[in-house]
């Protein structure tokens, strides 16, 4: 074992499909470099499993640079592991110590059914977006810059909400499996801009209705989502969604 490398015990959720019940299975991993990402450690383990003729562990991943939001892993009781502001692919093994036991589970929510092992079906988010997370105009060519004046603080707040990558960590960590941080970010990014105001009333009503329809829980303002969000989406967005929703229901 080269200097600084680690031996770890992994307890990983294995589940054949959405029908069967799964269980935690223990896998020892040896000689893990502290400079590996958490997903690279999984790659090493999966190669071992394949070589042994066993079924590799299914897990979601895509960009491996923290912008796609795919790498959903609940690591030692926290989405994306112990570090703040990172996704699982940005988590490095130096965040753990030699000899550690690491428990890895899929996102747990009725609205995110497990497909296999650590992969969950997050299309509930897509269906919420489809209910209003867009602007229904043919935009044509790009407009001249500053054609529509937008105050800098509004543009910044909108941009910060738009940083949401839809990973679902907010749902995963919420004691109620509430999707309100996600939905409020998707509502806020448009509600803050003049182009988005046009459909603001119908958007918030339809998206909240779809969120409820999908079976997500109800926010109790514990603030866990804000802490665990890899993109630092603020609770202010949830308050904004609440305001938008109340006003929309008064108006129509």
């Amino acid at each position, binding site marked *: 074992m080269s200097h600084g490398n680690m031996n770890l015990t992994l307890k990983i959720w294995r589940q054949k499909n959405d029908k069967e019940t799964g269980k935690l299975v223990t896998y020892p991993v040896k000689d893990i470099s502290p400079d590996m990402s958490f997903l690279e450690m999984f790659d090493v383990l999966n190669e071992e499993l394949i070589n042994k003729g066993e079924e590799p562990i299914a897990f979601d991943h895509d960009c491996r640079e923290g912008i796609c939001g795919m790498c959903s892993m609940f690591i030692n009781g926290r989405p994306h592991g112990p570090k703040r502001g990172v996704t699982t692919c940005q988590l490095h093994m130096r965040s753990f110590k030699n000899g550690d036991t690491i428990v890895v589970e899929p996102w747990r*929510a009725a609205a995110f059914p497990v497909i296999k092992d650590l992969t969950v079906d997050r299309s509930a988010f897509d269906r919420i977006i489809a209910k209003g997370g867009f602007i229904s105009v043919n935009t044509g060519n790009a407009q001249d810059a500053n054609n529509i004046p937008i105050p800098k603080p509004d543009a910044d707040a909108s941009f910060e909400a738009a940083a949401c990558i839809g990973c679902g960590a907010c749902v995963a960590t919420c004691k109620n499996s509430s999707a309100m941080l996600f939905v409020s970010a998707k509502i806020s990014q448009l509600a803050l801009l003049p182009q988005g105001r046009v459909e603001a009333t119908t958007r918030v009503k339809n998206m909240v209705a779809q969120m409820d329809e999908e079976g*997500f*829980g109800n926010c*109790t303002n514990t603030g866990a989502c804000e802490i665990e969000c890899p993109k630092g989406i603020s609770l202010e967005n*949830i*308050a904004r969604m*609440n305001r938008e929703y109340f006003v929309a*229901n008064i108006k129509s």
Partner: protein
Amino acid sequence: MSNSSANFIQSSLGKKLLMGLTGLFLISFLVVHATLNSFIFAMDGGDLFNQGAHFMATNPIIRIMEIVLFIGIILHIVQALVLTLKNQKARPVKYAVNDGKANSKWYSRSMGILGSLLLMFLVIHLSHFWVGTKAAQFGGTIDEHNTYIEIIEVFHNPLIVLVYLLGVISLGYHLAHGFQSSFQTLGLNHPKYTPLVKLAGLWFSILITIVFAAMPISVYFGIVK
């Protein structure tokens, strides 16, 4: 229109709004209750306190508010049950390991347990004081009813004092989350004012806990006779 209103009340955000509004209303009641309690510290043998208690038991506006208060409590409890059941359904399979303390306060995650403790305490509390006052009201003896003597008698029992202290501490933690949480639910979040609301909520919870705890403690130890 009516269909849309029904959708609003049944929606997650509509239910949350009702929780927040009833919560704030119940907080306003606590302020009145705590103020009247502190009248025992006038050290006048309970004169001021009994005047206050008599006013609360006989004033027609307060009588109406008593009914509104009970409706508020029931709405708060029923809505909490509905939301809690939905929230539990939203995660049918629990985590083997869930590190809640890493991202939230324990009492923010325990509002249901704290609320249930409060409800149990409320039943005990009403049986001690409210039932007696009601009996006097309907028996026509409210003018002779001495609440002050009642509290001196009840808080002679150390077990009851302990139950009240536990009830009051549950209330303190329930408020420590509930006060600021209701503002967020109402959509009142602002980078400048939210830190102030949170601070005010914390101090309000501490103050309410101290004022309510002061009565049984000072009666038990004979500070108030």
